[in-house]
């Protein structure tokens, strides 16, 4: 971006007081620990260090939740031989937020090898988090050996088919999708016909002003197909969400933060709490990226999300574990 950009609204497409340039600038700030909130139709940003000064309602809006991802419990190689330790650090970070999030989303790869003791350990560690409700979607590492049977038994109550479901919180509609089952050779993530039909029906009667949050493990946009970082039939899913003024898509799988804004849809991927992966194409393969021990926590992280009633876009803030 050339020079300093004035913080004025240039094209207010969605009539919510924010234009694409302003939002993207804010998203860039998010990587360095800024906190962006849309209040009264105006985008405001604060550095995270200023948060304690702000009144709770002013800072946090009306709905606040946290996304964690890719805990890979059971992984024990470089760059992280202690993924339980870094998950605990993530929980400490969550517990240290000035306003406690109402609940957590885990966007999958909870375990590394789908072993019962790995799931047990994650459950145990998350018990010490202040937000008591956790909503899960599986990663490909969670459905090994048994086509997801164990995952569904543990986390799939009330879900349909391969574990998809939806719920509402303070007027925001959340949709958990599964794109890691029945993967085809040479392919990407896949949602499948049954899940897409369910999704179409699930959102059919919602008002277009309802903010939507979709969460799934593999990115629902084409980040890097060569490494399987995309979902084959996500376009169909997004078509069903076209009518909504605000759609936020939260994914994991790639172990790094990335964001993209496309019309009314904001795509965002979270860091892992276990190990980083290389940027697209920057290595031979998307395996664990080794970093010096003292840098590890700076490449792992959590994502804090806030919605202010009546405003469109959600404020999505990443912070590292450092």
């Amino acid at each position: 971006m050339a020079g300093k950009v004035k913080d004025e609204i240039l094209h207010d497409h969605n009539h919510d007081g924010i234009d694409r340039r302003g939002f993207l600038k804010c998203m860039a700030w998010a990587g360095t620990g800024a906190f962006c909130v849309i209040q009264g139709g105006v985008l405001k940003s604060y550095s995270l260090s200023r948060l304690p000064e702000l009144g709770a309602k002013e800072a946090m809006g009306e709905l606040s939740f946290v996304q964690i991802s890719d805990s890979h419990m059971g992984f024990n190689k470089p760059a992280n031989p202690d993924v339980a330790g870094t998950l605990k650090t993530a929980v400490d970070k969550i517990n240290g937020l000035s306003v406690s999030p109402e609940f957590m989303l885990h966007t999958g790869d909870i375990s590394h090898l789908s072993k019962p003791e790995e799931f047990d350990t994650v459950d145990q560690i998350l018990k010490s988090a202040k937000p008591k409700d956790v909503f899960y979607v599986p990663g490909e590492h969670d459905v090994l050996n048994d086509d997801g049977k164990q995952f569904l038994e543990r986390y799939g109550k009330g879900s349909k088919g391969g574990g998809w479901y939806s719920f509402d919180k303070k007027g925001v509609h959340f949709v958990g999708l599964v794109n890691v089952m029945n993967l085809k050779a040479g392919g990407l993530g896949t949602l499948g016909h049954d899940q897409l039909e369910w999704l179409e029906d699930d959102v059919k009667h919602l008002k277009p002003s309802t903010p939507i949050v979709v969460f799934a493990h593999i990115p629902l946009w084409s980040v890097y197909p060569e490494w399987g970082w995309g979902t084959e039939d996500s376009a169909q899913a997004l078509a069903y969400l076209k009518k909504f003024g605000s759609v936020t898509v939260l994914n994991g799988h790639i172990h790094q933060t990335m964001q993209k804004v496309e019309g009314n849809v904001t795509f965002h991927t979270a860091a892992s709490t276990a190990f980083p992966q290389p940027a697209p194409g920057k290595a031979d393969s998307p395996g664990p990226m080794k970093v010096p021990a003292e840098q590890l926590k700076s490449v792992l992280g959590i994502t804090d999300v806030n919605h202010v009633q009546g405003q469109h876009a959600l404020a999505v803030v990443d912070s590292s574990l450092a």
Partner: protein
Amino acid sequence: MRRSVFIAGLAATLLLGMGALGVSQKNFVASAQQKSETTEVKIDNFTFGPAALTVPVGATVTWTNKDDIPHTVVSTDDPKAFKSKVLDTDEKFSFTFSKAGTYPYFCSIHPKMTGKVIVQ
């Protein structure tokens, strides 16, 4: 008399010699067959190496995961010709191919990883 004994002796020696040669020839062929009956595929860097492997009918192929991330070996045929459990680093999976044909497979965790075994 001596000449016939000599010839008989010569013949006997030759026969023995040929017999010995025959036996050692069999041994040679047998060990050559053993070498091609077990073949290795190394899994590393999200790749099956070699990606295309040709083996004789009856050969056993062993996949070894040398990557720092788990992988699987799953036939793409329907019904599946073979399916490994998840292989962590240094774990192996073996399958004996008793019928000729081409057997494409992939890693069900990372479906972009594909390979094939050609059995002939």
